[in-house]
C-alpha cells in the first residue's frame, strides 16, 4: 500500500486486504464444518448407500451454505465489541466504510460463491464415491439452479439484518437479532391484520385468513398474492427494499460510531 492509497476516502486495495484477512480468519471454521458435512455424507453412504445431502434439488447444500453464511454474518463484528481486540479493530488503518464493506463482501458474496463451489466439488466427489460403492450416484449440486437469484436475495437480506445486529449487540448478537426480527414480524403482521379488517371488514379477508378464523390454519405461500396486489407490492417493497436498505445503513452507522468504551481504563 502506498501513501497515495492511504489518502483515499475509499480504497479497493484496503478493501481487498480486509476481505482477505476475514477469509483467512474464517477459513479454519468453514473447513471444519465442510469436513463434518463430508463425514456425515460418507457415513450415510456407508450405512444407507447414499449421500444424504445429494438430494435432487440440492436444497440440503443450499441450507448448509446459507446457515453458515448467516451465522458468520451474525458474528461479523464480534471483534469490534471485544474489550481487548475492539481497540485494535477500530484503529486498524482502514475507514469504517471499508471495514463494514469488507464484512458484507465476505458474507454476502465471497462466502456463498466459495462455499457453493466447494459444495459442488464435494457433492461430485460424494456422488463418485456413491457410484464406486455400488449406489446410483446421487445428483451433483448445481448451485445456480438450487440457489437462484431470489434465494440469494433472501439470503443477502437475512445476512444484512444479522450483520447489522452484530454491529449493534455486544453479546449474543445472533439470538438478540433473531428475537427482534420475530417480534417485529409478529407485531407488523398483527397491525396489518387489524388494518385489513378495518379497511375491508372480516368478509374482505383473503381465503387463508378466513380459513384461519375457521380454525383451518391452511396458510400457503400464495397468501400475499391472493390478499391484494397492492398489499403484495407493499410487502415486496418492505422485504426487498426497506429492510435491506435499513439494515445496510443502520449497520454502517453502528460501525462508524463505535467507540472503545467497552473496556474503561
Amino acid at each position, binding site marked *: 500500500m502506498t*501513501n497515495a492509497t*492511504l489518502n483515499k476516502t475509499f480504497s479497493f486495495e484496503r478493501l481487498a486486504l480486509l476481505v482477505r484477512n476475514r477469509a483467512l480468519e474464517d477459513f479454519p471454521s468453514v473447513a471444519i464444518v465442510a469436513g463434518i458435512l463430508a463425514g456425515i455424507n460418507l457415513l450415510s453412504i456407508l450405512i444407507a448407500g447414499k449421500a444424504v445431502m445429494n438430494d435432487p434439488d440440492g436444497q440440503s447444500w443450499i441450507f448448509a451454505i446459507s446457515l453458515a453464511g448467516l451465522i458468520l454474518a451474525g458474528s461479523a463484528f464480534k471483534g469490534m465489541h471485544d474489550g481487548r481486540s475492539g481497540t485494535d479493530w477500530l*484503529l486498524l*488503518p482502514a*475507514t469504517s466504510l471499508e471495514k463494514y464493506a469488507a464484512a458484507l463482501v465476505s458474507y454476502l458474496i465471497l462466502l456463498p460463491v466459495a462455499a457453493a463451489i466447494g459444495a459442488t466439488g464435494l457433492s461430485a466427489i460424494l456422488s463418485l464415491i456413491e457410484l464406486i460403492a455400488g449406489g446410483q450416484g446421487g445428483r451433483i449440486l448445481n448451485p445456480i439452479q438450487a440457489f437462484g437469484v431470489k434465494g440469494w436475495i433472501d439470503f443477502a437480506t437475512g445476512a444484512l439484518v444479522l450483520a447489522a445486529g452484530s454491529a449493534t449487540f455486544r453479546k449474543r448478537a445472533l439470538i438478540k437479532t433473531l428475537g427482534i426480527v420475530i417480534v417485529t414480524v409478529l407485531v407488523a403482521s398483527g397491525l396489518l391484520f387489524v388494518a385489513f379488517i378495518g379497511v375491508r371488514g372480516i368478509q374482505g379477508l383473503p381465503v387463508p385468513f378466513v380459513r384461519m378464523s375457521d380454525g383451518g390454519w391452511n396458510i400457503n405461500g400464495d397468501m400475499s398474492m391472493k390478499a391484494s396486489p397492492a398489499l403484495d407490492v407493499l410487502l415486496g417493497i418492505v422485504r426487498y427494499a426497506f429492510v435491506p436498505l435499513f439494515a445496510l445503513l443502520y449497520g454502517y452507522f453502528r460501525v462508524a460510531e463505535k467507540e472503545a*468504551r467497552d473496556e474503561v*481504563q
Partner: protein
Amino acid sequence: MVKIQSMTFGYGKRPLFEGLDLRLEPGTVFGLLGLNGAGKTSLLKLLAGALSPQSGSISVFDAEPRRREAAFLADTVFVPEDPWLPAIKPSAWLERYAVFRPAFNRKAFLELAHEFALDEDKLLTRYSYGQRKKFALAAALSSGSRLILLDEPTNGLDIPSKSQFRRALASSAEADRIIVVSTHQVRDLERLIDPAVIVHGGKILFSLGSEMMAARLGSGHVRELGPDVVYAEKDRVGYSVLLKRSSDNTGSGEIQTADLELVFNAAIAAPRRLEAALRGESLRPLDPADAAQAADAVRTADQAPSGAAKDYAEEASK
C-alpha cells in the same frame, strides 16, 4: 502537532475531562502521569480516535481523530496496557496487519523482535503478557507513525527488556514524531520523558520540562526538614525531599536531579507549593505534620483522585 482545545469527555454522567487544553509538539517524548482513574488511558484513546470527545476539539497533525480516516490511523499507533494479538505467527501478522501502514519499517521490526528475543515460530496468542507487550512495542516503534501512544509500556517487562525498550524508545524519538507515554512506573522512564504532563481532576495540572525541573527543583535525603522543602516523604532515617533549588540549599545534603516520583506526588498533594517553587517564590517551611499529611493525601488520592489531595492542596497553600 497535537492540539486539544476545550475538550470535555466522560463516561455516562461522570465527566473525566472538562475544558481540557493541551498542546504537544513534535520531537518530544511526553510522559503522561496521573493517579489510577485520572483518565490517562482515555486521553490516549481520544488521541488515537478510539473515543470521541463530547465537546471541544482534538487535532493530530491537522487530522481529526474521531473521523478515523485511514491516513490518520496509519499515522498513529496506540499500544494498550494489555495488547491483544491475533492467533497467528509473527510473519503472518506482518503480512496481514503491517501492510496497512505504508511507512512500516519491516527491517526495524525484525531487529527489535530479535533484540526482544521474540519467538517467531510461536502463535502470538501463546506469548506471555511480557512477550505480547514487547511484540506490540516493537510493532509500534517500527510503524513509521508520527504519533505513538504507549499505555504503561514498561508494565510486565523484565529488567533487561526495560533497558532494551528505553534504548528503542530513545532511538525512535525523531524530530517529526510525538511519543506519549502514560506510566505509573516513572522511574523506568524518567530520563526519557520530557516534559512530564501531570493529569489530575480532569485537567492538566502541570507540564514540566526537564530543563525547568533541573533549574528549579532537586531531590535529596535529609534527617531534618529544612527550608525550601516542597514535599517530603518520611522514611526510617529521615526524609526523601523535593527541594526548591536556591543559592542557599544548606543543610540539604547532596542535591540530585529532581526525582519524578516525588515531583508527581508533590503535584498531587501540594500543587500550589510546587507551583510556587517553580516560580522561584519562597515557601512556608514544612513541618513534620505537614509532610505526613501530604503523604497521606497522595495515598488517599489514589482511591479518590479529586478528594483528599485536593483538600490537602488547598489547606497547604493557605
